[in-house]
């Protein structure tokens, strides 16, 4: 939401017309739907794994395994991704 609001305020500052403003907002809203924050996914992975293990799942369970891989992607330094049909845009946490 925050990047979208920032884009909107920048567009207003540049004197965009209402139509252009709508396009900016719609564009950034849609970009938000393509975005995944790996930090949020990692936090969710920790909680999801705990819940699954408490439910009786083992450490090699498919769900646990996939969540572990998600956590490891964040741990290895992946900040965020944006999925497009042709490619996955990735941004690292550290240079």
């Amino acid at each position, binding site marked *: 939401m925050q990047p979208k609001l920032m884009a909107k305020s920048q567009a207003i500052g540049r004197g965009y017309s209402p139509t252009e403003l709508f396009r900016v907002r719609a564009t950034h809203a849609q970009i938000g739907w393509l975005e995944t924050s790996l930090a949020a996914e990692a936090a969710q992975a920790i909680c999801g794994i705990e819940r699954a293990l408490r439910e009786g799942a083992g450490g090699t369970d498919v769900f646990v395994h996939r969540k572990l891989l998600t956590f490891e992607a964040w741990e290895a330094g992946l900040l965020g991704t944006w999925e497009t049909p042709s490619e*996955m845009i990735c941004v*690292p946490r550290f240079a």
Partner: protein
Amino acid sequence: MWKICISFSAPVNNLEKGEYRHEASERSARGLGPIGRPWGPQCWRQELLPALPDAGKQTLRQRRMGWSSKLVQQRLREPRPFPSDANALLNIGRRSPRADVAKPLRHLGQGGLCHVHPHDLSLQAASPADGRTGWKSIDESSWQARRVSADRAGHPIGVFEAGPDEVPPSPWHPLTESLVDRAASAATRRTDTADLQSKLANFAQAQGLVRPPAVKWFANPADAVAHLSRMDLDVLLAMGVTRFWRVDEPCPRHPDRDIDATCRLRTIAEGLVDVTELIRLTCNRN
């Protein structure tokens, strides 16, 4: 039951940034002794009484709002008077160069049970007669203090005696505990894009995808957003929503029996991984 004033051997904020860990390992590598921070009443100090449960939230909020320097400036040149109703002082922090006090501190910050190794504790009793000057050391081993707990209302804190063989109970599975530890120490790493690409391929394989996604790297999120915002809106709208990272969670068979522990875990996990980082970096560069 004791009313305890808690002091830390390092600032909470530094611990959250992993600086304490870094400093400790640096000193260890150079063959130096323990971190030269003052020990005892003159150490970095955060008075958590009487509002202990709020302290964790406050720290997180302060960090999010960029108030980190405020806490750092709270280093005490002169000991401040301890709360008059406190009758003991509890120092938390190891004196070993391989110190790692982030975990107990973090848990303590969230309220609830905090597991601290006896070697990490130094407990002093206060003499009510002459106030702060009357603090005297008590032999740690005689106390066997292993667990510190605080109730939800923020008071009182009790130190419980435990037998020498008792292992501190954890509300979470050991695998979860290890992930929390890993999350706490992941802040100082560098990103290896080749390694990440192979992890993405592994994940794609685990998700049953025929081939891994073609990866395009951008140095920062603002550049990625700028790249996408140049695309036609209709093209963007046709892209749908994220699917790659979605892992369907199995339907729970039992109700959550320890909601407090689950909520605490979520707060800790979100604080450790810094869920606001992506948004912050996107906005900072725009």
